């Protein structure tokens, strides 16, 4: 019991809980009161202190009155820099900003807004979260700055913003002042699009048994990669002549009676595992969107009727991202 209590990881967790002054996630706005800002000397600060001791011994030994004065001035500088560094962070107010969805493997960018409500600027604040890189920023007097805090992503689904460390060593780098924050902020991570994917399943299987070849030839609707079996007169020869190295493209047409493109979970080979299916569906959804097609998505439990546009794409990708997750 006691051993569990003293286990380093558990102790660290308790420290962070105590340091955050509330159970994460915290409500915004987060205000850095003096109770949650910590100050310790940096390595440079420790070396500086050591140097001061050596200088003091020299000043005493050689009875250098001005040496005393210099050492005391530098000691005062050390104290002043503690206060200045502390002041650079304390009473900072943080609110959350936007957090755009990303594809797994990209860096999620959590938006935080730092508000400086006082007449002096704040300089060289550094933030980082989890495995992410450090972000540097300055905030002018009475101003707010929006920053994007990057965090690498691996898995699809919701990514909660982990504990964020905010620190500063301004102005002299002798002292580090830092604090923690963990606002409720999460980023939607879409599945990674498949790399080597078959072309859009246009005209391929319609398990409802209607309009097997339901493509009218009335209106040109776009280009897609050539597939064996496409009618030769639909091949985009002009475009092939322009780009001889590119794959052959097939023109396809949307008519009054033409049917929209369906991306169907059930039509994929039954041996395919869930993540590969999701990756493929994402790839197709993006491709269809790029081609300007109206497309629908059919999943085991849900169905999105054919549509196009960012909102539609986002709805579908969100469902794919959260597929199988509560």
């Amino acid at each position, binding site marked *: 019991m006691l051993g569990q209590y003293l286990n380093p990881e558990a102790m660290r967790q308790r420290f962070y809980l105590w340091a955050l002054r509330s159970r994460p996630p915290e409500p915004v706005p987060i205000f850095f009161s003096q109770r949650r800002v910590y100050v310790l000397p940096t390595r440079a600060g420790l070396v500086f202190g050591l140097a001061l001791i050596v200088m003091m011994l020299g000043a005493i030994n050689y009875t250098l009155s001005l040496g005393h004065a210099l050492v005391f001035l530098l000691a005062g500088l050390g104290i002043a820099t503690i206060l200045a560094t502390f002041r650079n962070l304390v009473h900072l107010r943080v609110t959350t900003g936007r957090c755009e969805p990303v594809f797994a493997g990209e*860096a999620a960018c959590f938006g935080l807004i730092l508000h400086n409500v006082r007449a002096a600027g704040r300089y060289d604040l550094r933030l980082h979260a989890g495995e992410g890189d450090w972000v540097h920023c300055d905030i002018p007097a009475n101003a707010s700055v929006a920053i994007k805090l990057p965090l690498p992503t691996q898995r699809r689904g919701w990514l909660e913003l982990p504990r964020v460390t905010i620190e500063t060593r301004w102005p002299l780098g002798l002292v580090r002042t830092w604090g923690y924050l963990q606002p409720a902020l999460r980023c939607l991570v879409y599945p990674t699009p498949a790399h080597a994917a078959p072309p859009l399943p246009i005209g391929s299987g319609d398990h409802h048994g209607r309009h097997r070849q339901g493509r009218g030839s009335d209106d040109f609707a776009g280009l897609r990669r050539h597939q064996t079996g496409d009618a030769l007169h639909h091949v985009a020869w002009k475009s092939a002549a322009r780009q001889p190295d590119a794959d052959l493209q097939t023109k396809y047409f949307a008519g009054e009676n033409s049917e929209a493109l369906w991306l169907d979970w059930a039509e994929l080979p039954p041996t395919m595992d869930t993540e590969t299916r999701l990756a493929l569906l994402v790839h197709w959804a993006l491709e269809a969107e790029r081609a300007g097609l109206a497309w629908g998505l059919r999943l085991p439990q849900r169905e999105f009727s054919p549509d196009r546009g960012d909102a539609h794409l986002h709805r579908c990708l969100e469902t794919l991202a959260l597929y199988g997750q509560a």
Partner: protein
Amino acid sequence: MRISIAALKPWPCMAKPRKPGAPPLTQGQTVWLAASACGVLVPLAPYLPLWLDALCAVAILWRGWLLWRRVPLPPRWLVNLMAVVGAIGVAIHFRTLLGKDPGVALLTLFLALKLFETRSARDAFAVVLLGFFLILSQFFYTQSMVTAVAMVATTLLVTTTLAVLQRSSTPPLQAVRLAGSMLLQALPFMLLLFLFFPRVSGPLWGLPADAYSGLSGLSDTMSPGSISRLSLSDAIAFRARFTEPPPDQVQLYWRGPVLTRYDGRSWRLGLSGLASEAAAQMAQPVDYEITLEPHNQPWLFALDHPSRLPPNAVLTKNFQVVAKRPVRSRLRYAMQSVLDAHVGRNESADALGEALQLPADFNPRARALAASLRAVSRNDAEVVARMLARFRKETFVYTLSPPLLGRDSVDEFLFDTRRGFCEHYASAFVFVMRAAGIPARVVTGYQGGEVNPVDGYLLVRQLDAHAWTEIWLPQRGWQRVDPTAEIAPNRVEQNLAAAIPQSDALPLMTRPELNWLRQLRYRWEAASNAWNQWVLGYDEQRQYALLRLLGIPSPDWRALGALTATAGGVLMLALTAWTLHQRRRADPLHALWQRFERKLAKRGLGRAMWEGPADYAARLVRALPRREAEIASICTIYQAARYGKLIESAVTRRQQLSELKRRIAAFTS
């Protein structure tokens, strides 16, 4: 939420590499580093070997050139090689690598070479620390007011560099202002620590042999020319402050080393031993305090004859005050003397025997003179009087540049050249007295001094160095006889400048026609003296005196420590409070509005985060219909002040604020 095709590209984040501090130095940072090195090295240059000055100058210029042309740094091995060669140079120059001077030279060398190795912030921090060390090392050589000003300037420069190292994008002027404000905040701490931090009197460990090279003053031997050499220096030997008006110039004989042994050329210190009696109190004693410049010799100076000694000093048989160890830093001590005391009436036979000793085969003509004087005199006093009369009547000249003397120096001086400085007269007089059987000895020290009208201190300079004699007469003891006074009475009654012929080279300042310059120098020296007394001479004793003044009856280091800690803590708290307080003053309008919100929050009508003032006001009015007018007016003024057109005059703005303040204060929830 919007997602577009661009979503396929990674988001542009302003992320920097993970490790902070890793980036290489920017050009601006390097310029500041080089400037710091320059600022630190320039004040040290006069005290370093010339070749090292040149090397440092070349290094800094070369670094500047590399920076200017954006040429990459030389390879590391080359820099290391230069460091080794430079260190060997230092070792050869000083014949050692240990000690103060070679240490400073090595630090200088490393600072100059480190400029070629500043690849990261850590290297740069090493340069900054070296800079601080070298600022300190400057005080080995000088601690004047000018040095203090230079110290402040260089510290500002190095601190600015530190600030720029931390944030390279800081514009130069802003960086200087930042460092300046940090140093201003450091100032109260410095004053506090300087005044109350318990002082330890050094040294803590053995000092290297060269620690006090270059201190000048009277030595423990006297040969022709040794005192006249000092007379060319107007450096201050010591300062004296009398509790009452200082005695007459002719009584100001500052007793230093008493020389009894003569080898035919030089006079040396005699037997040592402690005195058995202090000066008898025949007359009113004179109290005074002396601030002695370091001269690396144990003796202290006191008026003839000392009657009360400072602690840590003893009185020798020759009535010379000697400290326990050489005076290596400015020393302040209180003394008491009796000006016309009779001492040594019961002098021991040993001492009298030593005061009669003469080398056998020197100066036959002087011996003959002594014999003839003795033959025509009835007693010792008459021999003395006749010898002095001889000096007065014959054509002796008092001069700073006497001719060189050969083996029988006393003979040549008395009978041939007849030109000499005080040591010639003292030496010849003592020789003749001893030859005539009268115990006699040479006393060296200083004579006279000038009162600085600005602060009232009596200044005694090296050029006041003097040599006189003492003879021993039965029943009367040791009597001072100054043969110089017979030849050049002005020397004793006024000063050196009055006694020396105009043609002799004198230190510029002592020339009487340069009165205005002297006035200027009086002021400067009074300021230096105040600096020496209160800043450089601030020690344990002065600390305790200050504490007594503050009402602490028996101060010790514990009281000092407690006072430092308490005052430091209070200062720290005050600064922290100031730091935290600043927030409230930032935006009065915002503060007022928050006050309004707080009042309503008590009734559960706090403003929601997303609510603007208009929405909030509408909700408030719905909740409190009877207060509609008040709420509407407050919100209208607030909105006008916050979002309205910029108000031209500050007066209207202030009216607006005070109106809002009044209404919010009147608003009772």
